[in-house]
């Protein structure tokens, strides 16, 4: 329980969500949510279905604009922004329903994660020679390290559409890792996996956090996993924050128990 025995450095606040509200017409997806994510920690966002967890991630990476409140990243309050600007700022994510590029191989999918770091211009790309080729090879080396790390060497050249679900999830994690993000958002990384695949995925998440010092924010429904791997947990219900703290305090919180198990009406 807890991961205090592992020597990691959890630093200052990396991302701060201040009183964020998000509405779609009459539906309030998020109401007045505030929390922060510290550098180097694994932060879990949990809650029952429809609690607004994915909406929260979508706000963080610029896919939705909060209707009220603000999000500050690395101490700077962000204005309205597009997802590619968040990507440029070092935020990468994976999706609940896999969003891989189905027509491309595993290698090419992970290579797309390096796109932002590839700079050679159009004419060099036409030649695919000299500096452009050198750049391609340099990034290929980084991508091969990600492939080694995730143990997917054997499926390097396989089109991702042919891969089983668990491996597709792993390739998607690889694509996010290839961008060398500072903040990694994982939307239900273990949904639909069997026990063995979940254990693998947990190991990868912990290793990413420990070896690369990547800050991770994850949404997950498997409470066992969440309580084991995360440093702090924020709990949402009907778009409101009902609890925030270490796994142990959150677990003991009566509001959380009520949200998950229901309250007695006797």
């Amino acid at each position, binding site marked *: 329980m807890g991961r205090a025995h592992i020597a990691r450095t959890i630093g200052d606040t990396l991302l701060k969500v201040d009183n964020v509200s998000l509405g779609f017409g009459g539906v309030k997806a998020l109401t007045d949510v505030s929390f922060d994510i510290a550098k180097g920690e694994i932060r879990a966002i949990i809650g029952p279905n429809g609690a607004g967890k994915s909406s929260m991630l979508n706000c963080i990476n610029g896919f939705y604009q909060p209707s009220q409140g603000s999000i500050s990243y690395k101490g700077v309050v962000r204005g309205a922004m597009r*997802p*590619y600007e968040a990507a440029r700022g070092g935020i990468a994510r994976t999706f609940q329903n896999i969003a891989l590029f189905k027509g*491309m191989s595993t290698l*090419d999918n992970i290579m*797309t994660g390096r796109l*932002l770091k*590839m700079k*050679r211009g159009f004419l060099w*790309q036409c030649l*695919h020679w000299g500096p452009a080729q050198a750049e391609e090879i340099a990034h290929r080396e980084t991508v091969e390290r990600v492939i080694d790390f995730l143990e997917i060497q054997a499926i390097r050249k396989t089109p991702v559409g042919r891969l089983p679900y668990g491996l597709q999830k792993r390739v998607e994690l690889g694509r996010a890792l290839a961008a060398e993000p500072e903040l990694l958002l994982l939307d239900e990384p273990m949904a639909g996996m069997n026990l063995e695949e979940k254990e693998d995925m947990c190991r990868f998440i912990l290793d990413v956090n420990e070896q690369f010092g990547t800050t991770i924010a994850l949404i997950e429904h498997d409470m066992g996993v969440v309580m084991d791997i995360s440093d702090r947990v924020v709990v949402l219900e009907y778009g409101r924050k009902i609890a925030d703290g270490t796994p142990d305090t959150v677990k003991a919180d009566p509001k959380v128990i009520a949200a998950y198990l229901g309250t007695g009406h006797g």
Partner: protein
Amino acid sequence: MLYREAGQFKTSYSADQGIFPILQDRIGMAILLAVAFVAVPLLASDYFLSTIFIPFLVFSVAAIGLNILTGYCGQLSLGTGGFMACGAYAAYKFATAFPELNIVVVFLLSGGVAAAVGVVFGVPSLRIKGFYLAVATLASQFFLIWLFTKVPWFVNYSPSGVISAPPREVFGWYVTGIEATAEAKYLFCLAFVAVLALVAKNLVRGRIGRAWMAIRDMDIAAEIIGIRPLQTKLLAFAVSSFYCGVAGALWAFIYTSSVEALAFDINRSFQILFMIIIGGLGSILGAFLGAAFIVLLPIFLSAVPQAMGVPVTTSTLAHLEFMIFGGLIVFFLIVEPHGLARLWQLAKEKLRLWPFPH
């Protein structure tokens, strides 16, 4: 048995990322290039060169262009004919306004003009997708052809509206105009096609191609990993239109030796779309296979009944052609959306294992 990659170890990433990583493919390509550059001009008659090989090469360039836009970037376009017309008319205007300009430069410049026009008509692609985008590009097709027919400036105020390509030479050989031999035209065309195909392959296997395919496969995920959708799509429109423009210029100057808007009507756009569907969406090889198929099928259809002694009228042939194309397109869309190129790839995979089942 002969097609094995066993024992071919790659020790560097550059070897692994080559266009033809397997030795047999490299040998095959070298032989193909030798045949195309040496054997064909020596052996083929003028008639074959100018009715089969030259149109095949011109169509290949246009098909590569459309395949970049539709096959790689996923933006359906019905404006190919319009962009080809842009290239053809731009080449005519450049060639007549600056007679001393080298014809290669003229063709590249006219591709550039087509690219600029393509970018303008590509702007709606940020907002609209699929069939709606196809309709928007259809508008460009009709608008451009209308423009070239109605504005006499484009044809240098020629009263008939049909203009012939002026004679131009490369390295002392005439490649356009009446004096140009079929061999010279063919070799000029082939050199253009070889270079353009190589450039297209380089683009699609690098950073830019991956951004295009990412937009094609899932635009939302592409945006989240940092690809800017508008810039990426517009680049695809520009490159695609450049290829179509060069194809149009080659068509007008090398193939038909005359510039007329009618050659680039909506039927031309559909014809090139059929090429990439039959040949293979998202494949440079597919563009060549599709172009070869569409050029050769009518010839095949007219030759076979004659050889068998069955009398078939030309109108029946024309109808047969429509029916076979229609049937094949339905077949490919349902059974093998990646076309002939995918069938070729499957055949190679089978060949690697042959004669063993696994």
